[in-house]
């Protein structure tokens, strides 16, 4: 294991002094990502600017046996970019260039530190856009999106990062170049691109991403529909899909969520409703008029108590602004919030929401819900005060129970935020030891010594055994004793 001094001097051999940070005041900004409950100062932060420098950082760290944690904008919500105290935090923040945008081919080749929204901004003059739009899109980077296989509010129709990335270039921990996928379809051999997307920075460090660009729809309109019952709203979602409609976006917020949001952005939500649905159509003007009419008929049949259709683009964006600002809005009404990310078969929504309501009582914590209703991805937001250790403890117990409920109903512990450090224990619930062992073996194919983003996403079997004992005793949250907390 390399000492701080040996790592710093190895990196300074090819990086300028300003690109190698090791004083506490400089490394402090990197101690956590969007999951601020977990913090750890990295031993060293490296900020390379070229692919060759990335390769050399990796080679140097591999030679010294030092762990490397890659990081984009640090907006991740599962602690995937949480540093290790004995390792290098590899910031890709300087890789901010759009290298090539080919409107004829409908692709953009970008560096990993390019912000998600910046790709669509660069493509807009050509009438094109990059479809996945996570709520953090003004800040989050495409490299991070690739690591987490990020979704967004339009992924029911347009797919996840996985469906919109054509090619990745990067390096293994040993600094060996790898090039996965291609601009041409169906690259030969195993679909390693699918394996790399969503691998939480554990298989490779991505230095270049080729994404697919789509023609911007000519127009889009969104229906805001109110329901006097959350389960009715859930049934309305199924009714829309049963009618053969795939909306461009289909989102749900419950009353506590709309109230929090309305104070923050004044999106114009119906505050009387138990839940609202945002149901969007895009396409040509004729298609949109036709689809909006059909969706309104279905929603009305399903018991919508009120419906408002956006009249123009500013109004459409205003309706969405509330949904996209849901997390920061909740951050205003509570000192802290803890965002869950389970996905469930939609038909089990009522059951899971009742379960969450019961957990609110059990743990005496409030929990507004925002929900990518179209694809079953729940984002319950537990409100708590992190300065109160006991509240944090209750929050973790609450979250663990909800995620395990998602698994029980046939869903998953994470739809788009990743496992990171946050949900690593719940992996033991979702997968059996043989499956976890296979994940570890896949990891070793790419990273034999486990140096790249260690300790994330895939638990060791020993950890699972320990977690199993704790669950048996009903002490779920105590399973994070080794993690520093804020």
């Amino acid at each position, binding site marked *: 294991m390399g000492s701080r001094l040996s790592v710093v001097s190895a990196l300074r051999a090819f990086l300028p002094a300003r690109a190698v940070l090791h004083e506490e005041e400089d490394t402090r900004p990197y101690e956590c990502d969007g999951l601020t409950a977990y913090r750890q100062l990295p031993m060293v932060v490296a900020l390379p600017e070229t692919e060759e420098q990335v390769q050399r950082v990796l080679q140097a760290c591999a030679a010294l046996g030092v762990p490397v944690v890659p990081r984009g904008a640090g907006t991740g919500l599962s602690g995937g970019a949480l540093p290790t105290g004995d390792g290098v935090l590899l910031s890709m923040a300087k890789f901010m260039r759009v290298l090539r945008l080919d*409107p*004829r*081919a*409908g692709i953009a080749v970008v560096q990993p530190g390019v912000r998600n929204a910046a790709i669509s901004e660069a493509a807009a003059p050509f*009438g094109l856009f990059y479809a996945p739009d996570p709520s953090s899109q003004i800040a989050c980077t495409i490299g991070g999106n690739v690591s*987490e*296989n990020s979704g967004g509010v339009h*992924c*029911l129709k347009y*797919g996840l990062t*996985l*469906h919109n990335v054509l090619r990745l270039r990067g390096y293994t921990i040993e600094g*060996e*170049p*790898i*090039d996965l996928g291609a*601009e*041409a*379809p*169906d690259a*030969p*051999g195993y679909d*390693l691109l*699918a*394996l790399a*997307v969503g*691998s939480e920075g554990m298989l490779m460090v991505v230095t270049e991403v080729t994404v697919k660009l789509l*023609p911007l*729809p000519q127009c889009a309109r969104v229906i805001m529909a109110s329901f006097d019952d959350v389960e009715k709203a859930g049934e309305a979602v199924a009714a829309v*899909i049963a009618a*053969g409609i*795939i909306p461009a976006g289909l989102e749900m917020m419950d009353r506590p969520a709309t109230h929090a949001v309305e104070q923050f952005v004044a999106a114009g939500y119906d505050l009387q409703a138990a839940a609202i649905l945002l149901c969007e159509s895009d*396409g*040509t003007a004729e*298609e949109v008029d*036709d689809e909006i009419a059909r969706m309104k008929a279905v929603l009305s049949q399903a018991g919508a108590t009120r419906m408002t259709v956006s009249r123009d683009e500013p109004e459409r964006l205003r309706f969405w602004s509330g949904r996209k600002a849901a997390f920061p809005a909740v951050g205003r009404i509570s000192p802290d919030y803890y965002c869950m990310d389970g*996905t469930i*078969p939609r*038909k089990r929504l009522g059951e899971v929401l009742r379960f969450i309501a019961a957990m609110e009582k059990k743990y005496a914590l409030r929990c507004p819900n925002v929900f990518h209703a179209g*694809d*079953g*991805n729940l984002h319950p937001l537990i409100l708590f005060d992190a300065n109160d250790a006991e509240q944090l403890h209750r929050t973790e117990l609450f979250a663990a129970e909800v995620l395990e409920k998602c698994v029980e109903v046939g*869903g*998953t*512990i*994470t*739809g788009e935020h990743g496992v990171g450090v946050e*949900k690593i224990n719940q*992996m033991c619930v979702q*997968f*059996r030891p*043989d*499956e976890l062992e*296979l*994940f570890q073996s*896949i*990891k*070793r*194919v*790419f990273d034999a010594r486990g140096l790249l983003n260690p300790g994330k996403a895939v638990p060791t079997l020993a950890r699972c055994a320990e977690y199993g004992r704790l669950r048996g005793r009903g002490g779920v949250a105590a399973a994070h004793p080794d993690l520093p907390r804020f």
Partner: protein
Amino acid sequence: MTLEPFQERIRDAAARGVALRLRGGGTKDFYGNEPRGEMLDTRAYAGIVSYEPTELVITARCGTPLSEVERILEENGQCLPFEPPHFGAGATFGGCVASGLSGPRRASAGALRDFVLGARIVDGRGRALGFGGQVMKNVAGYDVSRLLAGSLGTLGLIAEASLKVLPRPAAERSLRLEMPQERALEAMQRWAAQPLPISATAWHDGELLVRLSGPAAGVRAAAGKIGGEPLEQAPWAAIREHTHPFFAAPPLWRLAVSTVAPPLPLPGAQLLEWGGALRWLAGAGDGAAVREAAQRAGGHATLFRAREKSGGAFAPLGPAAMRLHRGLKAVFDPAGILNPGRLYAEL
């Protein structure tokens, strides 16, 4: 119905070091390198496990006839959007996933792998394992189920898979235009940059076919923009299933290239699909020249149908990629008994 018979068979073969040839209906025996080993017929493990149209997911066992899956979807107004080719009666659901092939709608709807949500497999050690699930969004663990798509059974026996499904388009219309290849490629690129509901394209011998699918209003409007003459009986099924006369003359090469690649000056007849990203070459083809042309065009070539494939069916991998492939093969199938050589001689 249990996986135990498969598990036992695979454990036994692994212990004896005997190769197994995993096979469903045998409709894709021609695809990839020559199959070898003791036959393991997957068809006994059949049936639709779950299908709820409003969840947009179907889960079926590997031996289920692909036609049965498509029939039940059609009865519910839904479809497999990637239009998998059957290549004969008796194609199975498992074979469809294992071969990873997609049909005419691939350029607009996505490939088979884009619709894979989960899979249960028996690996080369006889272990029954499950990955992914039945929900649209799932990032827990590495995406093994999509890795299996197109792996030709070399990583595990795909016993069950869950695929995302979509509603069938409300309206469909096909158009025919006459133009040489170069102009057809330009036209397809121009259309691809616009929000048009093009669900398939095919160019062959001076004739460009375009299919529009979607809401009636959009299809009508797009047909006006594209022009050409309407076609009542468009040969999409014949192109998808290779019963179109073009595909009769071996050898058949499949070149996947960048859509912006110019016409490829190769001897033999060509049929283009997917907006120009897929170029079939029939009746000729010197292996090295075809592979080189595909590579220059930003892609790769597969020797799809041929009497003799001694040069390998698939484009060779670079050393770094091959190392990863071998590593993964060793993880899933340490004894190297599952469809050995079918994808690459080294796997």
